[in-house]
């Protein structure tokens, strides 16, 4: 009876997994087909004539003026830069808010930062565009990188962690004459590696995957991120070139998929602990 039940549950789970995985498998399969086969409507997961042309053309720029190598470089650079800034600025701020009681306006800042988590992106999107426009920074890496540093999620996550951090080591270091920066950089940071990795994965994926902001804030092809570039291709002349599109999406998805699978456990922990997306 028990075994029978388990078999039924596993069978259902396999069917459900098929729903989640088939589109991804189909994406990879289509990326290995020529345009003719991709549009044939056949359901062959293994291409009749497998070809790497879509990847080679995409990466060497052979596709009509689509600098995909540049796009992926842009995406990775922007995501790494934003993540670095988020990690540094959030951890410094969270350390001060959690551990430095003489910080002026400490309580008000905590409330304001937490309240800001409720502010939807639609409220700041257009004025932020106009702000960068006024500064002459549209279509630059500044516009692609800086807006993500304002999010309070990292401060909130690290603040919670630092508050529960044992005081004794830190106090001992202070008595030994270490200043605040030394306590932060030599004691607090090295003890927070796992939570910093979690926040890093979170931030990297959020920035790398964002496509609406980069879509509007970039105006020339070489400044696009891969996600914005794909959105434009899918709207333009590539609608019927599924093989090429799928080679792009496969390349675009690989970095986040690898990071997601490796960091899944800490990712899940961050979601469930913070209760905030």
């Amino acid at each position, binding site marked *: 009876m028990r075994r029978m039940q388990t078999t039924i549950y596993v069978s259902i789970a396999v069917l459900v*997994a098929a729903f989640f995985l088939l589109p991804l498998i189909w994406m990879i399969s289509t990326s290995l087909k020529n345009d003719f086969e991709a549009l044939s409507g056949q359901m062959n997961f293994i291409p009749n004539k497998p070809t790497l042309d879509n990847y080679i053309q995409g990466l060497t720029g052979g596709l009509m003026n689509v600098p995909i190598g540049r796009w992926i470089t842009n995406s990775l650079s922007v995501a790494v830069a934003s993540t670095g800034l988020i990690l540094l600025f959030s951890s410094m701020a969270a350390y001060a808010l959690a551990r430095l009681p003489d*910080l002026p306006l400490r309580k008000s800042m905590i409330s304001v930062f937490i309240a800001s988590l409720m502010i939807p992106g639609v409220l700041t999107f257009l004025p932020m565009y106009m702000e960068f426009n006024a500064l002459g920074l549209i279509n630059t890496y500044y516009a692609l990188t800086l807006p993500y540093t*304002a999010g309070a999620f990292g401060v909130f996550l690290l603040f919670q962690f630092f508050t529960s951090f044992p005081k004794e080591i830190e106090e001992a270091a202070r008595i030994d004459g270490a*200043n605040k920066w030394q306590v932060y950089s030599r004691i607090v940071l090295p003890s927070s590696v796992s939570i910093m990795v979690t926040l890093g994965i979170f931030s990297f994926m959020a920035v790398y995957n964002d496509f609406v902001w980069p879509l509007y804030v970039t105006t020339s092809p070489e400044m696009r991120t891969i996600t914005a570039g794909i*959105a434009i291709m899918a709207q333009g002349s590539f609608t019927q070139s599924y093989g090429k599109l799928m080679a792009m999406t496969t390349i675009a998805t690989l970095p986040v998929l690898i990071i997601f699978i490796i960091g899944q456990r800490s990712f899940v922990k961050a979601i469930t602990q913070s209760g905030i997306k």
Partner: protein
Amino acid sequence: MKTSLYSRFTSSLFVLPYLLCFVSFLLIPIVYGFYISLHDFELLSDKHKYVGFDNYIKIFTPDTYLSDLFFKGLWITIQFVIYSVPLLIIIGLLLALLVNQLPGRIRGLFRTFFFLPYAISASVMAVIWLMMFDTNAGFINSMLAKFSVMPVPWLTDIPAAWVALVTTTLWWTIGFNMVIFVNALNQVPEDFYEAASMDGANAWQKFIGITLPIIKPVMLFVMITSTIASFNIYAQPFLLTRGGPGSSTKVLLMNILDEAFKNKEIGTASAMAILMAIMIMIISVIQYRLAYARKE
């Protein structure tokens, strides 16, 4: 602890970099957005005439172009919320229950499978499903053809387009809800179930009597986050249906961005964006209130 002026100054330095970002890319845009919404603000012109609350008044004046744009978009967005949120909650919970019934060895594997699409960018997700739902060469119609079903114009017909939009949304985000539910289910004490079993309760009675009441707060949380996420829907109609057929899936966010960047009317678009943001924040406040009430 010494709290000299110098010490307070050095403490402030730690917050300064983040505070600068916070002010520059959150506070200033909020204030500037409100300022823009009070002006006749064209994207490409330098002259911005102050018009007071005219932009808002126009939105609330029936049968004007702007009020149509706002309220039709809002109604379409609400339709999407109504179609997607119940499924996002119920199927998310069902998936969590399913994962917990699996043998321990494969549980993590299937959780990963169900959660995997969540890692993908919205634009990639939409392009994958653009191909899946293609009327002539798409995977779905090819599969249906095996059962002699005529090709369905998934992206150019109503209600098929809604089915397509909701399906892609479920595929993309339901893993998030599942993970939250799995975590909640694992916090239900095992003895509760054992005690109920001794009293002769069946699985359904245990679910209704024990599981549901305990996970109710989490359910509320998932309901609110899903509602907000669905309210913000953009990528799916933008890339899959392009708002069509006609403008029957043209959601509010699409209308706002079109008004801003196609019609170059940033002033009226900002007024619409602020109204949309207020609605989303009201949902957030309700969430906060309910969560707060729960702790007391």
